């Protein structure tokens, strides 16, 4: 079940598309403090190894001190595509290329001096989502978590299948911790990807479910 958001079927290297290639230029353009990448490899008896990865950028909140009327589009268009590039580069490296990626997800946590909408601006628009989808060769809408938080939070970032979001085997989350981030005036932006399904997925799928309604409650015996 492909979503209508088909953007590409060919591999795209966002690094090669970007005119900003020097890391310090990218850091300056995004107000970047740090990027943390994680990769988790779990041996599996049938699937070999399932690798799952995350990449988190911690940047200065570009809208600090603005009010709720402030137009967020200008900074979103300047910053979100660069974040998508920085984070997808690291996911592709950790997982060994887009063809190794089966599921994806994203997250943004804004520090306590910022507005929830600031987190949303950096991940909920095409300036981030379309580029991440393009780089990871997906077509699905990207599932997410967002919120406001303090440094040291632990997040569970949801992921689902990159071309068939309703594929039940691929519903999963990956846990990350954010040591020392986000500070009050920062935003942490996360991209996540998985090289496989849940380790022992065996709870059927929409295609195998029989019709279920609340009438089933009448049939359950103690």
């Amino acid at each position, binding site marked *: 079940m492909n979503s209508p958001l088909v953007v590409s079927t060919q591999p795209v290297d966002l690094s090669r598309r970007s005119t900003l290639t020097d*890391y*310090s230029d990218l*850091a*300056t353009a995004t*107000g*970047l*403090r*740090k*990027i*943390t*990448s*994680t*990769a*988790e*490899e*779990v*041996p599996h008896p049938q699937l070999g190894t399932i690798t799952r990865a995350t990449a988190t950028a911690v940047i200065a909140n570009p809208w600090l001190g603005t009010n709720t009327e402030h137009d967020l589009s200008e900074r979103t268009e300047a910053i979100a595509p660069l974040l998508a590039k920085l984070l997808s580069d690291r996911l592709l490296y*950790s997982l060994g290329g887009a063809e190794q990626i089966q599921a994806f997800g994203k997250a943004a946590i804004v520090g306590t001096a910022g507005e929830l909408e600031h987190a949303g601006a950096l991940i909920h628009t095409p300036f981030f989502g379309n580029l991440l989808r393009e780089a990871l060769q997906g077509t699905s809408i990207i599932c997410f978590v967002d919120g406001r938080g303090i440094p040291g939070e*632990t997040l569970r970032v949801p992921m689902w299948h990159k071309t068939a979001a309703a594929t039940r085997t691929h519903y999963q989350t*990956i*846990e*990350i*911790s954010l*040591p*020392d981030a986000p500070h009050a005036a920062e935003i942490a932006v996360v991209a996540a990807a998985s090289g496989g399904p849940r380790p022992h997925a065996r709870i059927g799928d929409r295609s195998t479910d029989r019709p279920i309604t609340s009438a089933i409650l009448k049939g359950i015996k103690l």
Partner: protein
Amino acid sequence: MNYRKLVTIVEEISTEGGQAVDPVARVAIVAAVIDNPWAGQGFVKDLNPGIDSVASSLGALLAPRVIEALGAPLEAYGKAAIVGLDGEIEHGSALIHTLKFGNHFRDAAKATTLLPAVEKRGPAGVQFDIPLKHFTDATIRSHHQSIEVKISDAPHSGEILIALAGATRGRPQERLAALSTEQ
């Protein structure tokens, strides 16, 4: 070397104290989650057979992965052993405080000093800090640093989490006088 999972973490720090960090400070950690070799055996007096069967292959597994994840020459390093709640801290120490383990990292990094370490016992997801020191002279003050780590869902009560960490440079904005200036 059997493990339940292997986790690689890379941190790239480009700003600290509001100033650019140039070159970017990279820190890499690789952690393996393994069965505690002494789980379920009660108090084991002689740990040597367990050490002999595990420590060297653990070092051989982790050391090259840290070097690869770091992606630039290593200048500081450290190690960690986090024991699940049913084990002894001594079990973690046994696996990392032996040359059989550490020499893999020293050789891969062309290092000469002893590795600073954290050893503790805790539940799955426990947070710990790995200390790092300069790889050829542990008195070099600019390279004293630590990195915070938390591995989700590990170690279970019968497991041990073993990690190695490396850094490409000293602290991002290091500017303390050398130890020799106070002697």
